[in-house]
């Protein structure tokens, strides 16, 4: 079992993840943006559109304007998730000593790394529980949910719970060094030799790999959907010039050269 999860499955799950995501994105890309369906008010400049785009992607602005509690649950969950994924990468790469780059000592850096990791782990766990609660408690959300919607949350909760157990219960703890070694061995296609691994660690890895396999075939693709859809509806729009032909124009406004205004998408059906 351990051998399967730690040595064989990672190659399979990473391949499925990468190929699956590419397949799905390719399918999206081959569908076209036929009409201009920009959502207004739309800014006249690309810069303005970029600000809106960023506010949606980074801050979930539409959600914030409409539903503060969903926003809080969703944004905090994703913010913690982003940090946790980032934390895994730098933590394992620099063995927790990444904060040396901003001037801390190695020990302090390790402590900070541990503290941040633990905190975000607990935060995301609470946020996920709230999102799950919401799915059961709010009638409208229940009305739109398929079983898979609950399962995604349970899967993430499972992953996070394992992670937190490893953080909080020394018996299940896994050191940055161990993880780093493991990834190096995997990446260089060497047989995996690990000490101090435990059941929770294996389960954590198994669940993460299930997530990776499921990812391209599920709503988790919203990660890319966000960027793709916003690219369609958050665009600049340039209004055609006003002014009617034959009407004498007052001194204050310049003579208008009539242009066929309005940025359009590549047209034609």
């Amino acid at each position, binding site marked *: 079992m351990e051998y399967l999860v730690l040595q064989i499955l990672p190659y399979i799950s990473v391949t499925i993840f990468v190929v699956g995501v590419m397949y799905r994105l390719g*399918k*999206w890309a081959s*569908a076209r*943006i036929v*009409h*201009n*369906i920009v*959502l*207004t*008010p*739309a800014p006249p400049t690309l810069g303005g559109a970029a600000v809106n785009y960023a506010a*949606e992607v980074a801050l*979930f602005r*539409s959600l914030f*304007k*409409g*539903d503060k509690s*969903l926003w809080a649950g*969703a944004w905090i969950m994703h913010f913690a998730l982003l940090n946790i994924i980032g934390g895994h990468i730098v933590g394992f790469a620099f063995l927790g000593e990444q904060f040396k780059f901003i001037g801390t000592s190695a020990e302090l850096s390790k402590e900070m790394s541990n503290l941040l990791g633990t905190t975000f782990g607990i935060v995301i766990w609470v946020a996920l529980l709230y999102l799950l609660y919401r799915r059961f408690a709010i009638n*409208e*959300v229940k*009305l*739109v*949910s*398929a*079983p*898979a*919607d609950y*399962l995604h949350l349970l899967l993430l909760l499972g992953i996070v719970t394992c992670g937190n157990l490893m953080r909080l219960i020394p018996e299940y703890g896994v050191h940055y060094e161990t993880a780093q070694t493991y990834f190096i061995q995997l990446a260089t296609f060497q047989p995996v030799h690990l000490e101090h691994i435990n059941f929770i660690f294996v389960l954590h890895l198994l669940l993460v790999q299930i997530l990776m396999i499921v990812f391209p*075939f*599920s*709503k988790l*693709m*919203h990660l*890319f*959907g*966000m960027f*793709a*859809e916003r690219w*369609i*509806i958050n665009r600049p729009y340039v*209004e*055609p*010039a*006003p*002014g*009617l*032909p*034959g*009407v004498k124009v*007052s001194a*204050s406004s310049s003579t208008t050269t*009539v*242009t*066929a205004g*309005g940025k*359009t*998408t590549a*047209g034609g*059906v």
Partner: protein
Amino acid sequence: MAGEKKYKAPNKATVAEMRALFIDPVPDERKVDEALKHLKYLVEKYRPLMLAMESCTKCGHCAENCHTYLGTRDPNNIPTNRADLFRKAWKAAYTLEGKLFGKLVGAEPLSLDTIEKMYSYFYQCNECRRCAMVCPFGIDTCEVTFAGRQLLHWLGMVPKLQAQVGAAMYRTGNHTGLPKPGLVDTCEFLEEEMLEETGVEIKIPIDKPNSDVLYIPSSADFLLNPNTMMGAAKFFHYLGVNWTMSSEIAEAGNFGLLFDQRYTMRHNIMRLLNEAVKLGVKKIVWGECGHGWRTGKMYVPSMADRPIPVPIVHLHDEVSYYIRTGQLKLNPEVNSNPTTLHDPCNFVRACNMADTLREVITAVTTDFREMTPNRERNFCCGGGSAILYDEPEMYDLRIKFSAKKAEQVRATGVGEHGEGYLVAPCSICKAQLYPMVEEHQLGVEVKGLIDLVGTALYPPIKKND
């Protein structure tokens, strides 16, 4: 089998009526297969539709933001569930996860019953895009409704109302089915009316050669909203614009947007561009029609079969420009009734017009009160996409769909003394709201925006002394 009356739905066009739209209805036993083919074609063609199928997280935020759900509490009117009519079939037929896991991931094979359900619920959507505005990803359920109605059209399932209007367009160049003599007569009548009202001789020309501006009115403005027609005429007259309308395309609306975004939409658009060249105009100016202006502004560029010969603008943008540059002398005192503005969804969420409407309305009235929410966050009137059906059970739905609007209007207090104005600068909004303000007893009169511009430019003689 799937009983005709299992779901609330408008009466369908007959075979003859569908054939007038050049569609042969598909018999029931072939419907599912045909529908699956169209489904694949549409989803693989339109990226916004594809993304709606594949990246909704089912967060449920759209539910409380759709007035059709708020008015009926029917779960099928939750935007993402409306999209599920497509999504379930798409997943079941064309995705790996749907084939492997079925119901677990929300997949369900298409059935004749689902097609009937589509006919019901895609025609209970106002295509107002409020769901797109609130969705964290911007998933636009209106796009799903568009595609859904396209598919149904290809199967031969179109409501009588939409089908008859579409056919009238082919035949006469306007939705009301008015032939040229009828248009000319009406205009002469309105000219007399204006002369009597203002003492000024104001023309409403049709097919006048060598004009500079082609005005595209809603054909409902000839009979149902004459004040809107007269308002536009007064505005052009005031500025001395050399304008005309065309009997070939006396229609701002384009029902193609609403049930057939291919031939019907394109036919209407090409008719417009042809006329612009024939009459040699320099600019096309659009009248008060929400979905029509969306088509004119956003879909002409992608549907036209040749470069667009002249700029196309909206009347309100022109009016606000001339107000801004101080070239109109307005008498807002003549419009002193408490006034509120219903923002037509198509204007504010699809055509960038929220500021323009305010620039105009504040210049021509003295007691303007915003409703909340307003601008792009406004709720639809419940008539959007012309689901203006009169069959009792559909009419009842219209009342429910407009419940949110009624609540908003009431909260402004404009109708407290029964003399409020509800300005709704969209032909379909007007058609919906004329009866709805009575049903909900709002104490307001429904007005077009340009109507008020007209009275502020040329106050009625009686009121002046």
